[in-house]
Every structure is written in structure tokens, then in C-alpha cells.
């Protein structure tokens, strides 16, 4: 029996795109919640939105955009045979993910320290529209944060595959798919940032 394994590069990539579409619908649903409640409680969304810090939001936007640059470049590096550069760039991507989560830690710690978190007594005392804002803020950015962590794990796993030679210039779809997932994480934040941090000030 021939040892040659037939691999379907296009099929593998398309499969990842299909999965990404399900993620778009998932986060799309959360953005719909935002839109519906913004329409119902415009004033409360503005007053609650002022509590969010544009520096945390903007800083994390820059971090994620840079992380996407790194992972995109890593594919070029791998395909050109620059494996060490590829691993360095992927390390940079994971480093950005860590930086994102550190920022988020400080941001959320400050909020939680002020009693602003789902189920808190302070939240119950707020106007309904304000409570809704913070609940969907935590839900959306929390779910996004989980995706950042998952993405970082997937990318680290991919780095291991590259080190062991399972992913290489002749067969790199695993890296490409990991990159696609990471870009989706970036895309979601591209919409979270203006909607939660900018337009409500």
C-alpha cells in the first residue's frame, strides 16, 4: 500500500471558514442584544458606557491588531523556510494574547472593585438599562476573552507542531487555520471596541 496520504488543503481551509461562520453568528447574537437594548435604553447606555475606559479598550485594540500582523507574517515565514522567524512571530502573537489578558485583568479588577459585576448588589441598584449594559458587556467581552485564551492555546499547539516538523512549508494548513481563528478574535474586538468604548462617551 502506498505511503502517500492524500490531503485536502482547500477542504481543510473551507472547513475552518465554516466554523468561523458559526462564531460570527454566535457573537452576532450578542451584538443584536446590544443593539436592541441600546434602542430601548439609549440614555442609560450612555451613562453606563462612560464608566468604560477608552485607554484599556484602545490599548487592547492595538495589541490585537499587532497580534494579527504577527500571525499573518508567520505563514509567509514558514512557507519561505524561515522556521525560526515563524516561531518567533507566533511567540509574539501569543505574547500579545497574554498582554491582552493582563490588560483585561486590570480593567475588570477595577470594575469589580467598584462593585460593578453581574449579580452584584450595586448592579441591582442601578437603572434597568445600566444593569443590562454591564451584563452584556461582561457577557460579550468575557466570551471574547475565552476565545483569546483558546486562540493562544491553539497557536502554542501549532508552534509545537512546527517544532516537531508536522507543520512545514509543504503542509501548513494547520498554521493557516490557527491564523484564521486568531483573525476572527481580532475581528470581533474590532466591533466591540467602538460599540462599547467609543460611541457611548
Amino acid at each position, binding site marked *: 500500500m502506498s505511503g502517500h496520504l492524500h490531503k485536502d*488543503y482547500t477542504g481543510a481551509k*473551507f472547513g475552518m471558514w465554516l466554523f468561523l461562520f458559526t462564531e460570527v453568528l454566535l457573537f452576532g447574537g450578542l451584538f*443584536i442584544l446590544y443593539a436592541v437594548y441600546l434602542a430601548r435604553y439609549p440614555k442609560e447606555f450612555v451613562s453606563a458606557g462612560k464608566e468604560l475606559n*477608552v485607554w484599556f479598550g*484602545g490599548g487592547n485594540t492595538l495589541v490585537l491588531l499587532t497580534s494579527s500582523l504577527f500571525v*499573518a507574517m508567520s505563514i509567509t515565514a514558514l512557507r519561505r523556510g524561515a522556521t525560526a522567524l515563524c516561531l518567533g512571530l507566533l511567540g509574539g502573537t501569543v505574547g500579545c494574547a497574554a498582554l491582552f489578558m493582563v490588560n483585561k485583568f486590570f480593567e475588570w479588577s477595577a470594575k469589580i472593585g467598584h462593585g460593578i459585576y453581574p449579580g452584584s448588589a450595586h448592579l441591582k441598584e442601578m437603572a434597568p438599562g445600566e444593569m443590562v449594559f454591564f451584563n452584556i458587556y461582561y457577557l460579550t467581552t468575557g466570551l471574547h476573552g475565552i476565545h483569546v485564551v483558546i486562540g493562544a492555546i491553539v497557536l502554542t499547539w501549532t508552534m509545537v507542531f512546527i517544532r516537531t516538523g508536522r507543520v512545514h512549508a509543504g503542509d501548513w494548513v494547520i498554521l493557516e487555520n490557527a491564523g484564521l481563528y486568531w483573525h476572527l478574535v481580532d475581528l470581533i474586538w*474590532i466591533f466591540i471596541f467602538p460599540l462599547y468604548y467609543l460611541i457611548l462617551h
Partner: protein
Amino acid sequence: MTEVHAHIVPYRTFILVWVALLILTGATVTVAQYHFGALNIWIALGIATLKSSLVIAVFMHLKDEQPLFKLALLSALAILAIFIGLTFFDVLYR
């Protein structure tokens, strides 16, 4: 059987797109300082859409993919638009 693969995207292309994304981020923060009323959200969404288009086309390589991929993405976005639209047909008239 090996497939013919798309050309390798130069580092420079990615870096140029990243710079464009940074500029657009600055633009969206700057515009948000001004008060155009209800227009603010549409401008913000417009810039976000532009940024996403760059990420999808270049970083995610969709520009160089087969038409099937582009059609699939358009279909998914159309479904999301219908989802949003029908929700608002309900919610706006309660």
C-alpha cells in the same frame, strides 16, 4: 496530488495593512470625540467594517481565495443581516 497554491504574501503587504489599521483606529477614536448624534454609531460601524474588510481580505487571504470562499462569507453575512433585520422589525414596533 498536489494543488497549486496561491503566491506567498510579502511581509511588506501585511505591514502596510497593519499601518492602515492603526490609522483607521486613530480615526475612529478621533471621530468619536465629536458629537454627530445618531450618526456617530454609523460612522463607527463604517470604519469598523472597513477595518474588518482589510483583515478579511489580506490577513485572512480571502482576496486570493477561490470564489466559493467569498460566496460563502457573503452568504453568512447576509444571514446575519437578515437575523438583525427581522429582529428589529419586531423590536422597533412593539
